[in-house]
């Protein structure tokens, strides 16, 4: 679709759900984004405040959901918004996770779990088994446990917390090592903090396992022009946000290490 046909449109927030002390889910109607595939994102305009990229967490019949963690000005402002408030939407933008058959492993950290939940829903009818590994700082921050448990069966769900309030007390990468050695997977999907993604990539790369990882970068245009979101030769907004193992290998010097900062210079992550 040419960019001219994906202009911003406004819509009302229909519903707001608390997912954790720091994460809320926002639901609204948007025809275009409701046709998005797992992994795609949208640009959400908070009138008068900011416009930010958010992964699409769920879609159905014209309805779209995004889950937002309050981390700074824009996201904190969003957490104060009420249903009925007007927001602007552009998108869906970017590529998506590829579908797989057989056995899939999904590894999510923080709000990176959102697109993976969307993906899990899509994959559930197509794969033989879905394993979901989710990590967070505390029990309360473990997102979407119920939905994930339903889709993947609880026995295929592994959770970790840094403070040990739920699941294993460790980083998400720890149990992963065992799982990867014990079981065969046809595809590993991950999204979360880039340092986590980097580690997971290294683990799969060593084992020559297929992987798709969704990355985040500072985004301005969202349509592949401004260069704010570049990693290596790729634009996260246009060539990503989902990258294959082969692509991650090309950009491994920057992955988890550096990014283009707000003034266009390369800064450490």
């Amino acid at each position, binding site marked *: 679709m040419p960019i001219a046909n994906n202009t*911003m449109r406004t819509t009302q927030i229909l519903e707001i759900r608390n997912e954790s002390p720091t994460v809320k889910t926002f639901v609204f109607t948007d025809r275009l984004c409701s046709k998005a595939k797992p992994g795609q994102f949208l640009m959400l305009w908070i*009138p008068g405040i900011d416009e930010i990229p958010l992964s699409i967490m769920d879609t159905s019949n014209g309805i779209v959901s995004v889950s937002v963690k309050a981390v700074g000005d824009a996201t904190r402002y969003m957490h104060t918004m009420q249903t009925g408030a007007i927001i602007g939407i552009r998108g869906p933008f970017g590529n998506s996770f590829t579908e797989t058959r057989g056995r899939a492993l999904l590894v999510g950290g923080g709000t990176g779990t959102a697109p993976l939940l969307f993906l899990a829903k899509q994959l559930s009818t197509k794969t033989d088994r879905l394993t979901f590994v989710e990590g967070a700082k505390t029990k309360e921050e473990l997102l979407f446990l119920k939905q994930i448990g339903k889709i993947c069966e609880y026995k295929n769900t592994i959770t970790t917390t840094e403070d040990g309030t739920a699941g294993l007390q460790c980083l998400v990468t720890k149990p992963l090592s065992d799982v990867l050695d014990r079981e065969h997977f046809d595809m590993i999907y991950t999204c979360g903090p880039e340092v986590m993604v980097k580690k997971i990539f290294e683990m799969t790369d060593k084992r020559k396992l297929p992987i798709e990882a969704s990355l985040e970068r500072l985004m301005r245009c969202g349509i592949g022009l*401004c*260069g704010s979101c*570049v990693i290596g030769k*790729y634009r996260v907004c*246009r060539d990503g946000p989902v990258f294959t193992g082969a692509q991650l290998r090309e950009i491994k010097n920057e992955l988890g290490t550096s990014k283009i900062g707000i003034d266009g210079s390369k800064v450490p992550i």
Partner: protein
Amino acid sequence: MEQNRLTTNIAGLKLTNPTILASGIMGYSAESMDRVAKSGAGAVITKSVGIKPRVGYANPTIVQTESGLINAMGLPNPGIEKYVNEIKHAKTVLQVPLIVSVFGYSADEYAIVAKKAAEAGADAIELNVSCPHVKQTGAEIGQNPNILSEVVKKVKAETTVPLIVKLSPNVADIVVFAKAAVEAGADVLTAVNTLKALAIDAETMIPILNNIKGGLSGAAIKPVSLRCVYDIADVVDVPIIGCGGISNWRDAVEFLLAGASAVQIGTAVADDIKVFQSVNKGLETYLRKKRYENVKEIVGLAHRK
């Protein structure tokens, strides 16, 4: 053979083809610009760099309009001190000329940044004197022929690489500015930067861009930028680079016929990064069908009477 038909030379810059990545598009990192070069561009231009780092404006920094795009990035850039490293790195990676776009708030600033960029290896300098949404650089410099002249002279005195001046279309008579720039020493003119524009959201009743106003680019402005090139070609002898709304080979041909020796492509990259390739392919076919040996032969032909 095929490639030869597209080779050209702009004030000493040797190009394998006349398509150039416009400033501000994927123009921060060497890898990113190299990708564009490998997608077919004959040269690349960096994001405009100033003397100090700038973070630019908060989002929204772009609005998509009917067949166009309004941007008000606010010239986010690392500042020349940091950016010299990227220029040096880019020079080791790129196989096409690297043009560094420079902006400033005074003639001295322009000169300092341009000098550092040239020393770091820039094959040419493009002066952005026409950014319509950043105060005291675009409006004040690109819309006043005397100040423009002063800036160009200072930069020219400090650098030896080809000097490109990118003109603003937001003027009553672009010819005045073209002449002023050339008389002051510009080796090449780029026509044009974006048109000053605005978008308002009816629902929330506010301007959409964080900076309120921005610059319109894309297909919408092509008839205006083409007219600018045509106007300038009538009065100056230096090569002109057409810019504004070019998205296919036919557009490129029109700019060449209007008097441009090469074209820059910006907004069309959003739809397809391979636009350089497809423009070149179409251009090549066009030239072959019309029995021209080289792209230079059609430059300015629309002025025949």
